[in-house]
């Protein structure tokens, strides 16, 4: 709770009120170490509710690492140590009140490569709700599956073959299936780690549209290498460089009027 008050004072809070959004997640002085190697050197960032936040930066700059801190996916990596504070609705996600399993149900994730389970489309979607006991009987589950697939814009394409393997879909469809799977457990935040890097331009356009629609109900953080994509889908953009968060501002501001020269160098294509 202290985190929230801390961040909602002074100019920052004023800026927030101005933009009309409340803060969903907060990172404060986040440092990540892989063994002796430091991957993140103190990141401060706030993620606003019902907004899309894009994380950009050259390869190896730590954006994926930061993303994986937000739902504690780094826990599974050997020798990974996280310092600093990450809060979801004012609660420390590495603290005692929040369990990692519970956190990941609230903060869903879509990965770089589409990774549907080698099961039917229906089972892919229903797995999450089933383990969390969200649906009490079949009809309810059917409804969740349909709604999730509709949200991911996949329902019309697969409604006649829900029993067929999810791995039989095309790459773009598989990624939307993964988004539907993440949506099915009703998360509050969805993290996307380069969700379009393995897709063709048409499938990418599809996903981008989808992200824009999902923003109404979810808070989205997306890592991308594609700056046009960041410009198209996000409202806020953070530029990462060598484990540091160089700059974070409204997307328009970052792309038209970057304050730091490293940001400028990256978005104009001088390096990266």
């Amino acid at each position, binding site marked *: 709770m202290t985190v929230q008050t801390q961040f909602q004072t002074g100019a920052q809070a004023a800026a927030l009120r101005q933009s009309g959004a409340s803060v969903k997640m907060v990172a404060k002085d986040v440092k990540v170490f892989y063994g002796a190697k430091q991957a993140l050197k103190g990141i401060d960032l706030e993620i606003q509710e019902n907004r899309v936040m894009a994380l950009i930066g050259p390869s190896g700059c730590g954006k994926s690492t930061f993303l994986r801190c937000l739902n504690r996916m780094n826990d599974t990596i050997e020798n990974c140590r996280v310092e600093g504070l990450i809060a979801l609705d004012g609660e420390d996600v590495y603290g005692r009140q929040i369990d990692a399993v519970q956190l990941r149900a609230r903060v869903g994730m879509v990965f770089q490569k589409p*990774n549907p389970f080698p099961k039917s489309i229906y089972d892919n979607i229903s797995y999450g709700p089933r383990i969390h006991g969200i649906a009490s009987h079949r009809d309810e589950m059917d409804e969740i599956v349909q709604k999730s697939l509709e949200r991911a814009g996949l329902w019309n394409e697969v409604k006649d073959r829900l029993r067929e393997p999810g791995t039989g879909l095309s790459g773009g469809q598989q990624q939307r299936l993964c988004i539907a799977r993440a949506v099915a457990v009703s998360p509050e935040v969805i993290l996307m780690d380069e969700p379009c890097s393995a897709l063709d331009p048409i499938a990418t356009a599809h996903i981008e549209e989808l992200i824009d629609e999902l923003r109404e109900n979810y808070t989205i953080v997306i890592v991308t290498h594609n700056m046009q994509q960041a410009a198209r889908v996000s409202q806020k953009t953070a530029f990462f460089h060598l484990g540091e968060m160089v700059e974070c501002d409204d997307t328009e501001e970052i792309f038209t009027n970057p304050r730091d020269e490293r940001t400028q160098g990256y978005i104009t294509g001088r390096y990266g």
Partner: protein
Amino acid sequence: MSAGNSRSLYQSDEFATRLQRRYAAERRFRMIGIAAIGMATLMLVVLLGSIISKGYTAFLQTEMRVEVTFDPTDVQERNYAAILRRGLYAQFPDATDRASRRALNDLLSSGAPFALEDMVRQDPSLVGTTRTVWVLADDTVDQFMKGAISRDTPESQRPLTDAKIAAIDALSASGALSTGFNTTLFTSGDSREPEQAGIWGAIAGSAMTLIVTMLLSVPIGVAAAIYLEEFAPKNRWTMLIEVNINNLAAVPSIIYGLLGLAVLLGFFGMPRSAPLVGGVVLALMTLPVIIITSRVALKSVPPSIREAALGIGASPLQSVTHHVLPLAMPGILTGTIIGMARALGETAPLLMIGMVAFIVDVPQGFTDSATVLPVQIFMWADSPERAFSERTSGAIMVLLGFLILMNGLAVFLRKKFERRW
């Protein structure tokens, strides 16, 4: 280098000869490969050919037809040998002297009177009647009928005298000898008499031993593999355990037998020659194999599946049991069955815990004395009789049959559970 230069480089004679050399090297490699496969096939054919050509006669057995009268007095005194003898002598009215009658007697299996006794026990109404019965012939008669003993061999060098051969000729001319399927081989235990010896006792012993092995090694092995692969922290201790498991897989199997002898028999006082002890010893031997193959199978499941499950809030155990384990199942099953097949063919450790004893009875429980198929083969291979050497090959064929069956099952299960999508 300009485009023109590089074109001339690849069009030069020097390049052409180099290309020819590369193709020649490839052709040589293919020839060597084909030769290697041909060699292996040839060896396999020779091995199987020699076993089958020597052993197929083990599945045949000669029986003799005798007309017997179940005399009540003899039945009372359980003198079934006398009943049988009278029936046999009736066919040779000329043989009245002691020597020729003894020669006739030798043509019958020493187990034949017991067969009559069993008949009477099952059907007491036989007493007093006259029946035609088929009883086992002696193994020398059997071998002669199958052509393994030649009448051209000098009399002093063959187990059958001329008089016996004459008697056999007479019997076979009257249709009193017939060679049919050897059911005894598959229904009885071991015996000193080849014609009464069977592998059923060894098969039952092998089955019981394997059941114990499987019940112990599969759950422990798979659980250990899952823990080590999915949950254990990667530190010095788990490294040490891993190295030790790999080393254990390479330990000579007889060492496990010594361990069983010292610990299970010596310290815990478990019964000697029992399938229970054999199973425990073989389970110890199979464990490292199962752990290693299961870990490889788990490792081959893409990490993206684990991430997908964790990403929607599955607990680590749920991600393993719901997703990783089903995908690793074909590999685990294959490893397990291969391990079991290895245990089925194992001899050395069982010698140490006394499963090499001569055991006639078919084991009825896990603590009964028993032997197993490969040990039975080992013991028969030691016997001098021609009939035992053919039974050795026959038992090897049965063992190979079981091994092929198990490996076939492994392939079938892998194909069945493999996710093709």
